């Protein structure tokens, strides 16, 4: 389940709902009640508020910490650094982006063998997003021109297929046409 939450856009959607739904429920309920049903001053013991305040803030902090701590092992900077440190049999791929196409040193990869993508842009800001054949985004990189260092990310493809590449940073009037295809066998 954590895989779904942190590696799929709909997982992010689920995290969003997880926070939004309780908020909507309580906020609307309380306001509705105090605006239409029982509008006067309430009899709640004033001593109770600080306690409620404490519970509320503690709950929020705990949930915030939980969601982020669980995400650490899914952070591409973390996994990439760990993979590179560990070393191994990588497939190295250099990507050069320019308006509005990619030069990619190698477009065919093997299943299960980690790929290091090193990507640069030579004109304006571009993106390099790789899509799973089912349509979800595996990862996206922002390529800022003029930098010494390439944007770098290690990804291991687990299924064969055709993986679409798209630019996700608006780069001018043919931005939508900036696409490519990678093959995993």
């Amino acid at each position, binding site marked *: 389940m954590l895989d779904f939450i942190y590696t799929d856009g709909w997982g*992010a959607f689920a995290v969003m709902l997880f926070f939004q739904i309780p908020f*909507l429920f309580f*906020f609307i309920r309380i306001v509705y009640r*105090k605006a239409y049903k029982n509008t006067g001053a309430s009899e709640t013991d004033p001593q109770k508020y600080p306690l409620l305040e404490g519970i509320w803030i503690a709950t929020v902090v705990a949930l915030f910490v939980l969601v982020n701590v669980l995400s650490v092992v899914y952070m591409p900077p973390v996994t990439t*650094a760990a993979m590179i440190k560990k070393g191994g049999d990588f497939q190295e791929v250099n990507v050069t982006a320019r308006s509005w196409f990619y030069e990619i040193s190698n477009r065919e990869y093997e299943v299960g063998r980690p790929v290091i993508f090193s990507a640069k842009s030579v004109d304006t800001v571009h993106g390099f997003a790789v*899509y799973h054949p089912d349509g*979800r985004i595996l990862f996206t*990189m922002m390529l800022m021109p003029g930098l010494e260092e390439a944007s770098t990310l290690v990804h291991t493809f687990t299924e064969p297929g055709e993986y679409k590449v798209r630019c996700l940073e608006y780069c*001018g*009037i043919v931005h939508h046409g900036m696409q490519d295809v990678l093959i995993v066998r």
Partner: protein
Amino acid sequence: MSTATLIIQKVPLFGRMFNVDTKNGLEDINSWPALITMTSFVWLVIAALLGLLMPVIQYYGLNTNLFYTSLTLHGAAMAFPFAFQLMVGVSLHRAGGCLGKKANGPLVALFYICMNVGALLLTLAVLGGFKVTYTVMFPLPVVGVQTGQWSMEMLILGFSGIALVLISMIFLYPIQVLRMLFFSEKHENLVLSPRTLKDPGMLGMLIAVLILLITGLPLMSVATPILLALYGILPMSMVTWAVEPVVFQFVFYIFAHNLMEAMAIMIVSAVYGTLPLYLADGTRKLYSDKLANAALWILLVTSLTSFFHHFYTMFPALPSTFSYHGNIMSWGTGLGGAFTIFTILATIWKHGVRPEPGMIMILAGFVIYVLDGVTAMVVANVALSFHLHGTMWTGGHAMTVLLAMSLMWMGVLYHHYPVITGRSLDAGRGKSSIKYYFFGGVGLMYAFMAGGASGMPRRIANWTEGGYMFIGILILIFGLMLAYGIILYLANLSKSSEISLD
């Protein structure tokens, strides 16, 4: 009669909505804010039409250039001459009435001119081909000239417009508010609802304008030499440091992120100022001023460095330590939000609330604002950002925060309206405008987030080809709802009736 009042009277359609009451002796705080607010709604109407045009263009597969033109104009008009200008109009009126200071004078007039002339110049440049979106995407403006996408003239025109808009937001408005807070003369007859800097409703205003001024300075320091070089006043060799993409992008987002945060702090403080006036038991106090102020300080401190979340996916050019920092600070902003939610709910629980349209509008806007805050935190998580950055999720977040804050300002304006115009609004029409705006806005938000979740890139002109037209249809449907809410709101202003004296 003041110049602003005269201008308003001459404007067809919108003039009626904002016709200033000249008999109540409050023209010094009413007329310029009314003109500024009125103009912001003119921009809203244009921008909303462009918003609706976008899904239509995509549906019929019209020229892709038309889409990028609408996108750039819609984003720019909604963010600056609408949302920001609406905030300026209403908040100047607030400052005037709370402090007893005049809300007119040369700085206010200059703000008005710079904002609107600037936005107009940018509009002309975009119509002339300068399709760079409202975030400029530097160095795209220059690369676009080199690749023949638009001309050097349009680049210079567009940058001149942007410079005027930035001057109005970074210098003119903040300095005017600082003048009113600390320097200009107090007039007892203008004090409508006295407040001091100890009140959360006023403290937020100070914090917000300081953020604009301070985080805007680096951007102005980079943008000014670039503009001077474009005009031929400085040699290009002197500005190579400033046109370095990473330099520009960082100063840009340090400002742009904090601009949104400043606007949020400004409106939250207006909510803190207005809510107590609508409490059912007549107490005119928040649950706790201390907690309210703490929320503002948390928002300030966390917002300053959370802008790193714009750059996570540059890794390792953005060292991961900054990514983690940005992640933590962005969620820290959420903690400020949690304090605000508690303050508002505890206040309402303790004292009850009168459900008048202005107040409901503010609360409805606050609900959208919090929902949007969640979407922002989700993309500000480093792991999730690598799946969502640059999709409709991020575009939807930017749009939703603006439309939420604007709804809150429309609520505050609803509250101020009788003082400004001497006329009262129809509660029924007010309430149905909220309904349409709220459900339209929330629907738009979920449509954009669903687009982002399914991998739909933002700012692309080929929704159909990507298989994303379904989201486009939802955007059109909820967009029409939102637009109808706006029409009802404006119709209410237009049909307001004289408050009788007896």
